Each structure stands twice: as structure tokens, then as C-alpha cells.
């Protein structure tokens, strides 16, 4: 078992969640409650990572952040950093790749709160921030948690985009999925199978947990 790679994967997943939670809540809520011009275009763009091969997304990110041109060049000149072949680059790639997995369940969760409940809260004298904190978040919470769990599991097992954007640098960008690939290349089947089994069990647990959570929340309030 490559504990270093597992540790890096867990770290990448947690950092991704740290950024995705507010992003998901903001966009999920915005898309659930607001009608605006270009909404369907934005939704299409946000859903794109669902169908786009991770390698394609990785390729474009590599092009955008390449230190020789455009944004990458500017970042390199201004901050002396680049987002390719390092952990920061992996985080950005992982956030972008997970956007639909975070936003869509949260959007559904916010949409399922009846409008009159939010309006009743306003009539009780609650400010919009209060309504979000006391009414919307508690009611959308199961959806938000399940989105986070899915993103965590998804990031933990992500391979293509990580390999392209991050390369395969131990302790920097070598995650558990890449480590499995690495072990297989080295004919170390025992390590590869232990790590694969761990990921399989974790994924099953994740799915069971999200189903349990959504059933529980339905029973609780309806």
C-alpha cells in the first residue's frame, strides 16, 4: 500500500472540497432560484465535465497554464508560479472537473425547497442571510453532504486529468489512482490489488451513505 499516495489523494480531495463547498452552494442556489439570460448556456458549460473525457480537459488546462504563453506566462511572470506539474495545479483541475458533481445536486437540493417556505421566513423578519443559514442550508443539507461525498470519492479516484496536469511526481502529484497504475506497470500486482480493493470499498461506502442520507431526509420532513 502506497500510504504517501493515499495521503496525497486524501489531501487533494479535502482541499478540493474546501473550495468546492462555497462555490457549489453559491452557484447551486443561484441556478435554483434565479432566471437570467444565458442560464442554459452556463448550465451546459458547468455540466461539460460530466461528458468530456478527463484527458481532454487536462489537455486544455495544460495549454492554458503552460508557462510559455498567455495566462500561464502572466502567472509565471507576476507570481513566479505555474499551475502545471504541481499540487496547486491538481487542485484547480480537480475543482473544475468536479463542478457538476458539486453544483448539480446542490441546485436540486435548493430547488426542492418550496418558494413559500423561503417567503414565510422573510415574512417572519429574517434577512436573506438568515434565511440561508436557518432555513435553506438545513433543508438543503442532505443534498450538500451527498454532493461533497461524491466529489470526495470522485477526486480520490481521478486518474486521467491528474496524470496530464500533474504528471507522476511522488509526494507532489502522485495520487493513489496513479500509484495503482504505476504499480501495475512495475508488475507489483499485490500492491495494485490492495489499493484497488480499498478504493472499491470506499466507493461502495460512499454511494450507500448518499442513498441512506437522501432516504433519511425524505422520511424526516415529508
Amino acid at each position: 500500500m502506497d500510504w504517501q499516495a493515499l495521503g496525497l489523494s486524501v489531501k487533494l480531495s479535502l482541499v478540493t472540497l474546501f473550495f468546492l463547498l462555497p462555490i457549489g452552494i453559491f452557484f447551486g442556489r443561484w441556478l435554483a432560484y434565479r432566471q437570467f439570460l444565458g442560464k442554459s448556456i452556463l448550465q451546459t458549460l458547468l455540466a461539460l465535465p460530466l461528458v468530456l473525457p478527463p484527458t481532454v480537459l487536462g489537455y486544455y488546462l495544460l495549454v492554458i497554464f503552460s508557462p510559455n504563453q498567455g495566462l500561464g506566462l502572466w502567472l509565471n511572470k507576476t507570481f513566479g508560479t505555474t499551475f502545471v506539474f504541481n499540487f496547486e495545479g491538481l487542485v484547480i483541475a480537480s475543482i473544475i472537473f468536479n463542478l457538476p458533481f458539486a453544483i448539480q445536486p446542490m441546485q436540486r437540493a435548493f430547488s426542492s425547497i418550496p418558494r413559500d417556505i423561503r417567503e414565510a421566513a422573510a415574512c417572519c423578519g429574517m434577512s436573506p442571510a438568515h434565511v440561508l443559514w436557518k432555513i435553506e442550508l438545513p433543508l438543503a443539507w442532505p443534498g450538500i453532504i451527498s454532493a461533497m461525498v461524491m466529489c470526495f470519492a470522485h477526486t480520490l479516484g481521478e486518474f486521467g486529468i491528474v496524470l496530464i496536469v500533474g504528471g507522476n511526481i511522488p509526494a507532489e502529484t502522485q495520487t493513489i489512482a496513479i500509484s495503482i497504475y504505476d504499480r501495475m506497470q512495475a508488475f507489483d500486482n499485490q500492491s495494485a490489488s490492495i489499493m484497488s480493493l480499498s478504493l472499491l470499498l470506499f466507493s461502495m461506502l460512499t454511494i450507500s451513505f448518499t442513498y441512506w442520507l437522501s432516504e433519511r431526509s425524505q422520511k424526516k420532513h415529508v
Partner: protein
Amino acid sequence: MSDKPNPDLAIHISLQQQRPIPLDVQLDCQPSELLALVGPSGSGKTTILRAIAGLYQPENGRIICQNEVWQNSVQQFFLPAHRRHVGLVFQNYALFPHMTVLNNIQQALSEIPKQHRHSHALDLLKKVHLEGLDHRYPKTLSGGQQQRVAVARALARNPKVLLLDEPFSAVDQVTRRKLYRELLALRKKLAMPMIIVTHDLEESTLLADRIALLHKGQILQIGTPKSVSAHPVTATVARLMDQQNIFTAQVLDHDLTAKKTRIHWLDRILEASFQPQFKINEKVCWTIQSANVLLHRRDRPSNGDKENPLHGKVIEYMESSGLVNMLVQIDKELNTTIAISVPLHVSKRNGLGLNEIIGISLLSEGIHLMPYQALRR
């Protein structure tokens, strides 16, 4: 309830817009007064209620409640819902499902000190007869109980106006009657203006001091339920008030001594109450409430039978809750019918039934004239 309502505590509403729902209304509701907004679906009644609550911003509006400006589009001023002191009871109550009954009410008590909120919420629960249910969740309550929680929560904010959006539509008939009685008892203790939205005419007649009849975003008539029913200003109002007896006629003359107006209807002359605002020979519409149509007793004719007597065949006969509703065909060729309601025992005693020929009298005081308009049949 104070003996003399203070006009400063009234609410004044003026709303105008073309789209998406046309609105052109001006309304006042006095303290302690219960005003019903009545009208068919899509007439704009719920939109008006939402505009008062600040949940909807019409294009042009001016809302002043207890001398506090809530909206003034001329000055581009709009006070958001959470800063208006409004108590709103939603159609489906909109209780917070993740909170107990007590918590639901406490959410509206943010303006009183924290240490008093618990006891204040319990007092409100007592007021709506829900003692002992404070730790229950909304989904474990019956429809009637949920409605009471919604009323308690609406009152918790000490609102300057109480708004009720079809509050009885989600409960069964038996519960509804019980809740009517409770609301009538509760409103005696309330000093703020109250506005109820309903499409149920019976409900508005039972509960409201005044009704505003809405149609396509406009108020067609405003007044006491009795006056709007008996004296609709147009045939459209009469139709929306569920009047079945609406006809066209021509004014014949006005009898100044007897204080009667005579009209020519079909091939008959009818005596109506004195309505000199209509000119002689003017075409008019007229209506009579079925309660003002008297049945001639077969066994004992009386002098009253001479007042606008008519004879016809019963072509529809329906019994419901101790009343009989009949359609009496006066003219077969023109298919002119008059609707009449009599108590079931009267119908039985007179041997009434389908296809019976009966005599009726139209009370002249009940015949109300309106400007002419083509009637839809």
C-alpha cells in the same frame, strides 16, 4: 379590539402594472376590519397580497401601512418583506418542516428579548388552542393544526397587517367550519387590518366586513358582502357573485308616488324598486337573488302572491343540506328560467318536484337594475 378604530392604523394600497399580470387597484383596509379579496382564478388577488407583503414588486405601487411607507415607486422606494411587519398565512401554511411548532413561532419573535421568546411563543400557541403540541414537528400535525400554527406564527411578529391567502382551502369541510368559528372569535381580539384572499363567496360572506370583487386585475366593486350580492353595479359583478337570475329588460316608467320603477321583460311588466337613475325606454340588465323569489303556497294563496306573479315548470330540482334549488322555466321558447331556493320542508309540504307547474312571485324590492350589457348564455 378598540372601540374606535384609529384611521392612522389603516393600510392604503394602490397598484398599477400592465405585465405580467395586469393590475389596477386602489384599496384601503381599516384597523380591525376584515377585507376579502374575491375573484376567479387569475384575477390577481394573490398577487395583490404578495405585493402588500413585499414578496412581489409591481411596476407602480404605493403602499402605506400605519403611516409607514412600504412602497413608493415614484421615489423608487421598496421596503423588502423582512423589514415590513406583515403576518402572512400561506395557502399551504409554509411551516418550516425541520423545526418544531415552538421553533416555528419563535422564528418570528426575533424582535423581542431572547429570554421572553419561549413564554411568548407558548402564549401564542394557547391563543390558537394548541397547548401541548409545542415539541411536535409540522408533518405530525393535522391540516387544521398546521393552519393554527401558521396563524400563531403570523401573529408572532405583532404585524401591522394580517394577510391570509386562501387559508381554508387545504382542510376538509368539517375542519373548515371549526376554523371559521375560531377566526371569527380571534379577529375580535385583533386591532390590525386583515386581508383575506378567497375564491369562495360563502366564505367571504361569512367572515368579511367588506369584499373587493376582482376581475382581470381590477376591482369591479367593493362593499359589504350583502350590498355587493344584492346591488351589483354591473351584470358581470352579478355573474361573478354567482347570481343565476340575470336578464335584460326595458325601463317602462317610474312611479314617484308608489316609489316603484316598472320594467318590460319578455311580454310582462314587472315592478321593481325605485331606481330613477335609469331613463325611460333605456335597455337595462336586472337581477334578483333567489332568496327574493317567493313560492306561492298551493294550499293557501296569499296577498303577496300578487307581487310580480309568474308561473312555470320545474325543470331542475336538487336537494342539498336542507335546501331545494330549483330552476323554473318561465318561457319555453326563449328558454328563460328563474332559480329559486326553498327549504326542503316547504318543498315537501307543497308537493314540489320535477315537471310540477308552480307559481312564484318576484319581490319588487329585490329586483335590482344595472346598465345594459349583452349577456352570455
